[in-house]
């Protein structure tokens, strides 16, 4: 509206005076240059350059990498969160999420605990090739597998399998180091005694603190060192009932391979634990996707299809591996973080073709409707055309 008309409105002069005063004593927003970016960087940096400060041998197949940031304070994290490492092997750019195993109260470093995956590209690299002083790129800490004091309560049961102990280690260390009012029972499943990570520390903590109980569960017979009473077999409903006692007001957390989730969730539900009391960490793609419900029988895991990214030559992709893996092998840079179908960073548009998406994928209704998929939780079932 023209100012000469506006001038005739009641209160115009007052507003003009207010504007004059506000501008006189107001804020020079030129000084805001870089401020938003600095705030984001403080809490949630998109990129973090870390250096390996130390390497700790845990078991024959496991190491802990102690990561420091030489030139900045480490962003805060909550016990249970992970770091998404960004790695490059020749033309292949990939990433892996690793749970932080150190306590969040320890602001000097992040520990990530890496176990060797058979034929694993990244775990092999981290276990065999990196040295103290090497740089590692990562995103800021992320993840939702954390204790929420608003409704999780203080009676906690941790169910870990193999390297799934890492986030629990962070939670246990924080609770015991800081004397938090939480009661923890850890059921830790492994194949053999040699595979148990952090055993010595766990026994030490369990003998010292009343609010922490440690129950290792081994598939195979073997002697733990230091000696500690252990259960044989799997984490069954009988074991759960016996070890936990009163099941009603506990919060159950699970972290480990897909087989553990499938098995233990069934056992917990059989015991009458409601879904709201079971929390589960994302743990990467399952090993044998074709065994999942809804997988078409006509397609075998080793079937190979052609994936065309709009505007470039087709690349091969196996039905048994995720589209994200195929794209990365084909030289495409696809942002990723959780690599378990949850965070949606690797979202791509499916122009044509069909994919299998496991029931665990957290796809938005709008993405489902408009043809977007999470490439880390999508398996090609025929030739595909996608837009990255």
């Amino acid at each position, binding site marked *: *509206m023209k100012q000469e*008309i*506006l001038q*005739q*409105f*009641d*209160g115009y002069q*007052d*507003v003009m005076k*207010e*504007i004059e005063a*506000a*501008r006189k004593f*107001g*804020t*020079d*927003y*030129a*000084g*805001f*240059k*870089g*401020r*938003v*970016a600095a*705030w*984001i960087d*403080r*809490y949630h940096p998109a990129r973090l350059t870390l250096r390996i400060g130390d390497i700790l041998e845990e078991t024959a197949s496991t190491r802990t990498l102690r990561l420091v940031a030489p030139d900045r*304070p480490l*962003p*805060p994290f*909550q016990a249970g969160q992970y770091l998404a490492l960004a790695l490059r092997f020749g033309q292949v750019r990939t990433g892996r999420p690793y749970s932080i195993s150190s306590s*969040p*109260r320890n*602001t000097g470093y992040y520990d990530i605990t890496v176990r060797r995956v058979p034929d694993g590209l990244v775990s092999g690299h981290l276990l065999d090739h990196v040295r103290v002083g090497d740089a590692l790129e990562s995103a800021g800490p992320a993840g*939702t597998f*954390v204790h*929420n*004091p*608003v*409704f999780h309560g203080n009676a906690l049961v941790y169910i870990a399998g193999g390297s799934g102990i890492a986030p629990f280690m962070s939670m246990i260390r924080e609770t015991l180091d800081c004397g938090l009012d939480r009661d923890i029972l850890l059921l830790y499943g492994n194949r053999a005694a040699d595979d148990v990570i952090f055993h010595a520390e766990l026994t030490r903590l369990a003998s010292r603190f009343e609010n922490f109980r440690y129950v290792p569960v081994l598939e195979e017979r073997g002697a733990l060192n230091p000696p500690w009473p252990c259960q044989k077999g799997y984490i069954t409903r009988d074991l759960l009932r016996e070890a936990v006692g009163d099941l009603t007001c506990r919060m159950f957390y699970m972290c480990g391979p897909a087989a553990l989730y499938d098995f233990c969730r069934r056992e917990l539900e059989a015991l009458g634990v*409601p*879904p*709201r009391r079971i929390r589960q960490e994302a743990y990467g793609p399952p090993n044998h996707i074709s065994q999942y419900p809804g997988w078409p029988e006509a397609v075998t895991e080793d079937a190979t299809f052609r994936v065309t990214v709009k*505007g*470039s030559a087709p690349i091969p992709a196996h039905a048994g591996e995720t589209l994200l893996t195929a794209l990365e092998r084909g030289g495409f840079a696809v*942002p990723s973080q959780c690599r378990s179908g949850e965070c*949606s*960073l*690797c*979202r791509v548009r499916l122009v044509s073709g069909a994919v299998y998406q496991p029931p665990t994928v*957290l*796809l*938005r*209704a*709008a*993405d489902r*409707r*408009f043809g977007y998929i999470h490439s880390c939780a999508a398996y090609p079932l025929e030739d595909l055309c996608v837009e990255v």
Partner: protein
Amino acid sequence: MAARTAPEAVPLFAIVAGLPGKTEKSAFLTLVPPVLTGEVVWCILFTGCIRLMRMRLAELLEGLVELLEWLSPWAERRVPCSVRRLPWAVRRGVGRVGPVGRVGRVGRMKPMDKERVMSRYDVIVVGAGNGGLTAAATLAKAGVATLLLERHSVPGGCATSFCRGRFEFEVALHQLSGLGTAENPGPLRAVFEGLEVLDQLDLIVMEELYRTVGPDGMELTLTADRNAVIAELQRRFPHEKEAIAAFFEFLAAFFMEVVGLFYLKDPAPSRDSYPRAFSCLLKTTQEVLDQFFKDPVLCRALTAYWGYLGLPPRRMPFVDWAMMFLAYIEYKPQHIRGGSQMLSAALADTFLKYGGVVRYNCGAARIVVRDGQVEGVVDDQGELHLAKHVISNASRITTYADLIGREHLPDAAFAEMRGSSIGASAVTVYAGFDQSPDALGITHTTTFIGGCGSQDEEYEATRRLGCHDTTGLALTCYTRMDGGFSPPGTTQAALIMLQYADPWFKVPPEQYAAEKYKAADAMLARAEAVYPGLRDHLEEMEISSPITHLRYLGHPGGAFYGFDQHVKDSASFVSPKPPVDGLYLAGAWATSGGFQPTLDSGVRAARQVLKQLGK
């Protein structure tokens, strides 16, 4: 055409070198399709010319035009070709390869610093929030070559959702205003129709405005119908019966006057024809309410929506509240099935359908301005995209201070902003329950839970860290309208309180998570006073703070409504002309916040661009 071979490269260098010329402005190159037999020669020619120009032989360019005219049988405008298929030399050189192999201007390449020029567009839209999406879709539909840059992996800005466990959570939309129905269309309906998203969306009309639960046990539910609102208020406040009738008559007349002044743009308004607007346009809501009512409880029940505008009645412009309140009554609030993410996805889909190019996970680092004119955008991967028009959906502060920089802007740009203050953000508890809304006792879609003091004290509390007894809260239960957010028998809801970012900046980073939980805990305790036992059925929860909003929106203070909208901040007092040519703003910081204003702002920005482009 393909039968002709291109001339030899070497003689062409000679021609180029020997031709006279004055201006660098008129040099245009057009690429031939790489399938032509002359492809290789052309590339040598092209890179050769660029090399010459890089040696500051700008005067050669006019000669180059003549040369090109001579070569014109091979040259074809708007050749569809993709960047990847072009030879290395063109990609690495100053190859100006647009979305459809557009004509590129090479004359000014040299001074463009070190960034690689990756593409050229008519318009670049920075940010795929509400304003950015409607702007981009409008432009693409008008046939304008448009690039849309978005830092995140999904479109929407505020208008997004996220998933946790069995739940999908709506981030921002509570009640969509201004849409209306086919029989009674609101202003936003035409926008949705024009952008072809109306048919894509399943809209649910809410018959209720809100339920308010006051500190003194006062409870009131207003339906989205004018007569019903009047009747209910008169029933509850019989001592104000006449005043209520008079006020709603005034409100309707005021509404029509504002429409006449601002939407129909009466060229010669006068106090006689617009008496209510002339008297009340620059007043606060409370000032006008006080002219009619004596009962503060009534005033409070009427203005429960203040949280949707960010300032309490004593500060909120009457016109803002009145237009919103009446629009909600006349057109009824609506919900989009699948949430606002469905709207964002539909807008993005229209944009793509009409040939728009979108880059997700790719933000803008800089808007290139030279001599007061926008030249392009450098993205956060260091690639330069050329365009004469840029619509920024980033905040006004970010656009000026970070993307353009003070040195490229007239002083007036920052001087004008000085008087404005960064608006409120919020703490939101996104909650998933393992029981139905009925079982939880959540009977209404929108419930305002008042603080124990006045509305001014509610506002005061927004500047203090956390949730207090004086804090005002809103609970939106999406499952009451739309069961699709979670499995049957569960409930998805958002509990929100406005909160400025300042106190959150003072929290040490290592205590940040604990403060979030503390705030959420206090908010839930307040909600449990209305819905006992709520907490026992929580299955999933996520908490957003002002810092969360700052992170995902990139706005200073996480201010999703933009600047505080006092009377002095209204659009009437802000210069409509952008500080540099070719720059336009869309979103909350262009005018004011909320879904309808931001969606509308993008369309308006796009129309300004189209006018400039002569379309």
